[in-house]
């Protein structure tokens, strides 16, 4: 187990390096630098040169990259080029918001997705299964930002039930919090629900066709015991793997959703810093996100190993 953890941690460093070089190059190779975000679009060429000198952006790209990397080893993600705030502060301020939304969407996806998947497999081939399958097709196909806009139009602008924008933390009161997150969380969770339903259904189907399930039926065990104790337990490792995958996807999905609902999370920060070419922020955010994704994968592997003796 310890070996597995160490192995995984070992892969983080090369992956992180590769990704950060990639992000750095993409951000640098497009025209339109942070100087314009600082000085406004009609900054004079002289002034742009002055800002670039001040920020060290006139140095060769490899030098800029290495100096950023040097800061990293000292535990700093650098400072924003545009507003000179520490990137760690920016990330720390926004992370809880994104984490809350992603976590709530994940919980919703699991609570809805797994039961629906089980029902679909139990009723495989029937009308309920057909209904659930059509729902999942829609869930996978429909872009979340479009759904989000439809939801805003209906619930915020026609019915006035929910606020169209903003985020209230749980500390501001649970009702206020749920009102502010229900649209983003539900739209964010729809895709993952569909994915979890499909995987749960097929994993369950596979388990239900196994020998030991037939034995269980022949012993006359009650249906819910056969489904939950025998089939689900065996299907669980692949379901958990999918949930882990979905969790990583959710973090990416938050980028779009945060913009549509004006939620001050990490995705919104990323979009803004990409547009202003604020590369320390872009680098910092992607690095943090990458660690989270790698961490999620690690946790999933550990859970699977814990519940499934075959993978140990």
């Amino acid at each position, binding site marked *: 187990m310890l070996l597995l953890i160490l192995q995984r941690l070992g892969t983080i460093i090369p992956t992180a390096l590769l990704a950060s070089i990639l992000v750095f190059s993409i951000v640098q190779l497009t025209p339109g*630098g942070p100087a314009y975000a600082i000085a406004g*679009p009609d900054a004079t060429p002289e002034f742009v040169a002055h800002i670039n000198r001040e920020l060290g952006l006139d140095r060769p790209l490899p030098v800029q990259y290495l100096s950023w990397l040097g800061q990293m080893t000292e535990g700093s993600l650098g400072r924003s080029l545009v507003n000179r705030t520490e990137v760690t502060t920016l990330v720390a301020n926004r992370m809880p918001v994104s984490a809350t939304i992603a976590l709530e969407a994940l919980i919703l996806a699991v609570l809805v997705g797994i039961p629906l998947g089980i029902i679909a497999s139990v009723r495989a081939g029937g009308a309920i299964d057909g209904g659930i399958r059509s729902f999942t097709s829609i869930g996978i196909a429909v872009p979340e930002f479009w759904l989000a806009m439809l939801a805003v139009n209906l619930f915020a602008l026609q019915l006035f039930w929910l606020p169209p924008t903003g985020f209230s933390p749980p500390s501001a009161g649970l009702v206020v919090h749920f009102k502010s997150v229900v649209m983003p969380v539900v739209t964010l969770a729809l895709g993952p629900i569909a994915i979890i339903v499909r995987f749960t259904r097929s994993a369950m189907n596979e388990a239900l066709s196994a020998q030991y399930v037939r034995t269980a039926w022949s012993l006359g065990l009650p249906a819910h015991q056969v489904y939950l104790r025998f089939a689900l337990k065996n299907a669980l490792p692949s379901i958990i793997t999918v949930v882990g995958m979905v969790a990583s996807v959710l973090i990416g999905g938050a980028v779009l959703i945060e913009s549509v609902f*004006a939620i001050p999370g990490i995705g919104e*920060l990323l*979009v803004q810093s990409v547009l202003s070419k604020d590369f320390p922020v872009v680098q910092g955010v992607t690095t943090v996100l990458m660690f989270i994704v790698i961490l999620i994968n690690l946790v999933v592997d550990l859970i699977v190993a814990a519940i499934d003796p075959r993978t140990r």
Partner: protein
Amino acid sequence: MRLKQITASLLLAATFATIVSAPAAYAGPDTNIAVIGVGEEPTTLDPANGLSGGDIHFLYTVYDRLLDFDPATLEPRPMLAESFEWADENRTLVLKLRQGVTFHDGEPFNAEAVKTSIEFYQSSGKQADLNPVTEVEVVDEFTVALHVDRPYSVLTSLLMDRGGMIISPKAIAEFGVEGVGRNPAGTGPFRVVSWAAGDNLALERFPDYWNPERIKLDGLEYRIIKNQTTVVSALMAGQVDYVMSIDPVNLPVIRRNPNLQVMTQPTIASVVIAVNTNLEPVSSKLVRQAFSYGIDREALARIAYGGEVEALPASLLVPPSYWPSTPELDGHYTYDPVKAKQLVTEAGYPDGVEVAICANANSGSPAPGAKLVDMMREQLRPAGITLNGEMLATGAACIELYNGQQAIMLNLAGWSGRPSPIMTYQQTFTSYAAYHVSKEPFDGVDAAVERLLATSDPAEQEKIFDELNAMWVDNVPWVSLYFQPRVFAQSSQLAGELPNLMGKANLTTLYFE
């Protein structure tokens, strides 16, 4: 099992119903705090160390300036200075300061504070416009004299802008260059309560403001919402009371809503095509004139605003309602493809010319680049001008290419205007103009600008502006397209904003009806 399931679903449904059934209540007249939706947060609230024009409307709320401007004509008016007078053959500006004014941090406002603030501004290295001021002399507690080393009649205009925003000397000493921006202390009607980067900025009314009758609101809360569709939703749901800038495509839906009003104001800002006069064929004045005749400005303005807002076609860099304009030159360039074709031939290109333009591919500010370029391409074709467009993701990307003296000879851009019209010409038309990339001198322009700087007599200045305007339409250093009205929207209950030609919102006088 079944019963449990049913109970659970009922409970869940009941909870959801409770959550959503109470209609959402938001800010508005009840709190007497106006919630303002803005796309960009201030880069800094330090007037001396900031550069972005987008910061100005925030700064107006926190800082009063030495001089205010008349909203309609932009002529200087008293503010923190009760009067001003040029002396010593226009080499000294004497300001009599208002008494009984305090800063947000409790410091008294006086001549020493003005000196500290202006010197802080000059030492920032960010802004150079007050550099000709060689000395800020404290004459007595409420009189300062600004000495300049050259004729500098724009000084009064600069004191209506960043340079005239006086920062508390205590804040300067305590926070310095790095800190004033986040811990601002001015003498303005509102002071900062909290600022969550990228999310919101909250201001409250300053109880010791020197002119309390002017201020009706108890506070202003800015919500930073970058997505235009989102901010319009927030406005329609009543989450925000005022949206700083509205994309014309959203106007029909706002106009249909009886609780909202669309507002438009003329400004000195315009959409232009900047020209690198070093590059062939636009190095030829005749080709530039041909280009200017070859485009239908009214059609472009209509396309830009979807017919929802009237935008005036522009031949000059200053709008007709602004005093430096010359009315008879105002409509100099009208669409005339035949004349354009003649001029191209006359310039020595009987087979026509090919020109490249860079534009922002996005629909937003300052102009819907792709649409305008497509339209101009068709308009210019009969004149023998082939327009090749380079579409980039941001306006800044275009400027970088254009300034880099690459083959981008034209750049579709926005000109926001300057506090003084002299600066407008100085920065775009002279041989040392920052925005005139080729630095190729135009005959008589530098001398005319020098004469403007040397006189503070408005009648004299008006005459020189007429000369400069004639040179502008003759040389076509930039192709002016149309003037940009400021388009914004607000709750019908909100009123009190004084429209100003500068085009930067001044929210200090807002109130709920």
